[in-house]
């Protein structure tokens, strides 16, 4: 699936998962991945501490093959689905209190659907049944009538939900709920690499085995789902239901998570807005191993701008190409290297067409995936990233470690990464990007000064060792209460951690935390030594 990452896809989140699994060899892991149809092949070599990889295909044909139960399980389904429909059709609550109630209800609905599936019910078939579709239509109409069809929050919605829209929404939601029908993982910690559907795996483990749930968020899952649908081709009513579902899942996961680790302070805003508890949040920045990204000793012969990353609409390479056209007018002979694999072939083709249209053929090159990203960073005077949505991108930190100056757009945690060691401009502003690039290309002294600052900033704040220490400390905190009660799921004395959406695993804790230490940390809001980078109040050191 487009959201699928480790170990079936490349990209920043997969890099982070691999770093975490390899960097914490004292833990044993299971990798749980939501995939498209289960036919994907792993793109990463599994380290020895990964016990197994579990693929949960969301979009493969066929259902669970279970029979539709009658009697009480069907009643369980009706009650849970009714609550889910209420949440899907009701616009976001403005009042924080009522929003919290809405999230709790959604979570209860998910739990009811999980119990229905665990009791042998075919969730997908039940959701797509005529009765369920009729209930969806009824609830849509009732919510409209209750709020008033002219209510601002319902603006743009049709008064009636057609069967076609209801069936399409139910089919999509049925697929997305498949993780609820999978037997819950057994581990000491479930660690989701992002919010969204993967957290359903964590929810079932929590309901079944009381397993602590940790969610890391690199970007903001919900924001990206919303952006996808701005130009999406779904009918409006289906988009309303689908995004209502995504919003509900994200809010429920925030509500249920024992710990939430946003990978940038900026993204905390969305999380807090959607119900995350600031007392359970710790900002954790991505880190890189500086020795793997040595500082460049020389500069290229020709003025060169480099982009390293996926070829994807979220990266807004059109703006980069347009900005480069402006740069070429002012810095003749400038070059643009776009390095990275295309996750969207049509978008790649549109970039190539734009390069040709702007007369940049030869000067701007799309080089595809490159074997050596360090060489790619070193080959530019300036490294550019013009995304419209980001978490805390590795490419920025890696380029800074390589002693290259960044020109970035101000999205997600980019400005926190770059600080005063580069240029951060507004997204989609080709003029501003071009101005920043030209300034840097024309001023070698400024380039050198900012490059040195960038490298030092990474060494001070964004190393892999720091990041791993932070997570190690967080795992210890999460499993400590479980150790005091009883092992959660696994055999006694063999605690396990699961990193899901991507990774799950079994963790052998080398230094169990003493009850006294645990109490001290509890009192301090989990702000143990490994978590010094973020505090429960969200301030950064």
């Amino acid at each position: 699936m487009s959201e699928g990452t480790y170990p079936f896809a490349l990209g920043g989140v997969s890099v982070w998962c691999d770093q975490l699994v390899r960097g914490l060899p004292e833990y044993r892991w299971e990798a749980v991945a939501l995939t498209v149809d289960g036919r994907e092949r792993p793109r990463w070599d599994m380290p020895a501490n990964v016990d197994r990889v579990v693929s949960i295909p969301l979009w493969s044909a066929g259902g669970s093959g279970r029979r539709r139960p009658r009697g009480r399980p069907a009643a369980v389904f009706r009650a849970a689905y009714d609550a889910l429909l209420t949440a899907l059709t009701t616009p976001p609550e403005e009042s924080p209190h009522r929003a919290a109630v809405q999230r709790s209800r959604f979570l209860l609905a998910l739990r009811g659907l999980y119990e229905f599936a665990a009791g042998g019910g075919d969730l997908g078939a039940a959701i797509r049944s005529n009765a369920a579709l009729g209930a969806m239509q009824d609830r849509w109409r009732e919510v409209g009538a209750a709020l008033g069809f002219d209510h601002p929050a319902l603006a743009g919605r049709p008064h009636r939900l057609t069967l076609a829209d209801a069936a399409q929404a139910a089919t999509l939601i049925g697929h997305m709920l498949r993780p609820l029908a999978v037997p819950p993982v057994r581990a000491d910690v479930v660690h989701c690499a992002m919010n969204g559907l993967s957290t359903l795996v964590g929810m079932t483990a929590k309901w079944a085995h009381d397993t602590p749930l940790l969610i890391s968020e690199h970007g903001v899952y919900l924001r990206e789902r919303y952006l996808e649908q701005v130009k999406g081709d779904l009918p409006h009513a289906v988009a309303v239901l689908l995004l209502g579902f995504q919003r509900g899942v994200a809010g429920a996961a925030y509500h249920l998570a024992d710990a939430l680790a946003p990978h940038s302070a900026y993204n905390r805003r969305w999380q807090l807005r959607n119900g995350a508890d600031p007392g359970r949040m710790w900002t954790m920045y991505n880190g890189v191993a500086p020795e793997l990204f040595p500082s460049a000793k020389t500069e290229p012969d020709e003025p060169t701008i480099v982009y390293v990353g996926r070829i994807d609409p979220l990266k807004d390479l059109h703006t980069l190409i347009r900005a480069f056209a402006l740069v070429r007018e002012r810095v003749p002979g400038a070059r643009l290297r776009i390095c990275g694999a295309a996750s969207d072939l049509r978008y790649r083709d549109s970039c190539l067409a734009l390069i040709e249209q702007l007369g940049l053929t030869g000067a701007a090159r799309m080089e595809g995936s490159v074997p050596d990203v360090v060489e790619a960073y070193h080959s530019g005077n300036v490294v550019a990233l013009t995304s419209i949505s980001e978490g805390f991108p590795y490419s920025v930190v890696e380029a800074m470690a390589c002693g290259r100056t960044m020109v970035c757009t101000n999205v997600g945690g980019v400005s926190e990464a770059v600080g005063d060691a580069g240029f951060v401009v507004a997204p989609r502003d080709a003029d501003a990007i071009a101005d920043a690039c030209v300034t840097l290309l024309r001023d070698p002294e400024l380039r050198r000064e900012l490059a040195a600052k960038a490298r030092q900033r990474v060494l001070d704040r964004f190393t892999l060792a720091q990041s791993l220490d932070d997570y190690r400390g967080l795992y210890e905190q999460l499993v400590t209460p479980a150790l005091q009660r009883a092992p959660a799921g696994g055999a006694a004395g063999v605690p396990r951690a699961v990193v899901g959406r991507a990774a799950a695993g079994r963790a052998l804790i080398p230094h169990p935390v003493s009850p006294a230490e645990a109490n001290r940390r509890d009192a301090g809001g989990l702000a143990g030594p490994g978590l010094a980078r973020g505090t429960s109040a969200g301030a950064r050191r």
Partner: protein
Amino acid sequence: MSASAGAGTRLTSMAVAARGLATDETIEMPITGLEPMLVRPQPSTDPLDALVAEIHAREGGRFVDELQVTALLEAHGVTDRTARVQYGYQDVFELAREARVRLTGLAERPRRRPGRRRQRGQTLRELCHGALYLLPCVLFPAAVAGAQPRPLVLAIVAAGLLGWVWAGGIGWLAYQYLNAGDEDAAGRFLAASAVAGVGVAAVLGAAIAATRGGGAAVGLLVPAVAAYQMASTLLLFYRDEAWLVALMSPAALAGIAFLLGDHGVPAAAIVPAVVSIAATFGVAVRRALVAGAASVVEAGRRRGLRAVLRGNWLTFSLVITHTALLAALILLAQAPYLTDRFDVLVAALPLVVSMGFVEWRARRFGERSRDMLHERWGPRGFRRRVLLLAAANAGACWLVAAAAAVATLAALRLADRLTPAATAMAAANVALAGACFLIFVLAGLGGYGRLCVVLALALGAHFAARPLVAIAVAWSSPAAALTDTVAFLGSAVLLVGLLTAVLAPSLGHVRKYR
């Protein structure tokens, strides 16, 4: 002149006209003050209006909720600081809430779902399918004249079964390629498998000729009939029925001339037929290859046959099985009469000639039932209407086939060849016309497994019922043909009943219509 200026002028002139009629108290009112007050609002100085106008111009005005507007604003570079400093809102979320309200005011009404374009050309093409399915028959009279009856019957049945099943299988697989977005592979696959199918048919024909006799006529008949079926499958797949008609016309004319011309030299009919079939086959294969080569397929979407079949083996097996069962049900009922019972054979025409109508109604049923999902009904209303729609279409198929049957039986009566067996065969084929419609509908809903079961039961009933009919109805000569055709009629009616029974519960399930 702008619209607002025009409206202002109209208002002023109305006011001037009104002054003449007004009382003294209103005469003193200034006229000119009306224009700016009523029709020319001050340009907005709120920067949010400019932002909203920009978003509306770029992305339209329909957003799911304020969070979507927030995401969009952030993607355009609006930060909490910008929201405070430039727009005076606490953060982007608050700014987005207000922006959404204003955007909604600018949103266009959702466009009505465009109706289906009238597809007269497609309808005409489909209606002529029945006649196209009859075309292989042009070979039979000449072949009968030149070959022994028993091997010939075996060859015709074998060719019909092989061609029907092969064509059904490759057609289904080609659609799987198309569903995967690989038209190129679909074309290449169709071309290669059509050639392979004719090769298999040639081997089969040679085997029948070698083991059962019949000579070259039998050896040639099987690959010729198979080649025609492959060619028609390919040309129908690419909606090129016109080529099929044009290229097969000489064969049809020669066959008719042979039939009407007091059965002259068989070669006079066979040679044009073979040439026409060869030409049609060549054109069809080329058409498939050209269609494939013309398509642009993304590198990642190219798939091999194994990839297409992965996860679909069971469905593919069921497609093949139900096609074989249907072919067996129809062909085995006609086979005994191929050489010496012209009356019974002709009585099978109503099904063949009405098959184009049946295909057309099946397609329209699929389209109309999906269209109904966009109307205002709930699941109950949909179920009621879709059942009525299916019943009406099945009834139409029966009516058309019945009309063809009446015409056929009338012709037989005029020729003094009408027999009870022919009447029973015609009635069975009328029943089968409606059954075929229900089969297409059930296949369209993915019920291949159920199709296999009901077709197997109907086929079994045909053979099992013959002795029972013979016992129950002590007809005199010609009992064999009559008991067989009456049993066939019973199996066709049973098939209709079984199809109705398996279809009715699932026909109203909305999830089946994807």
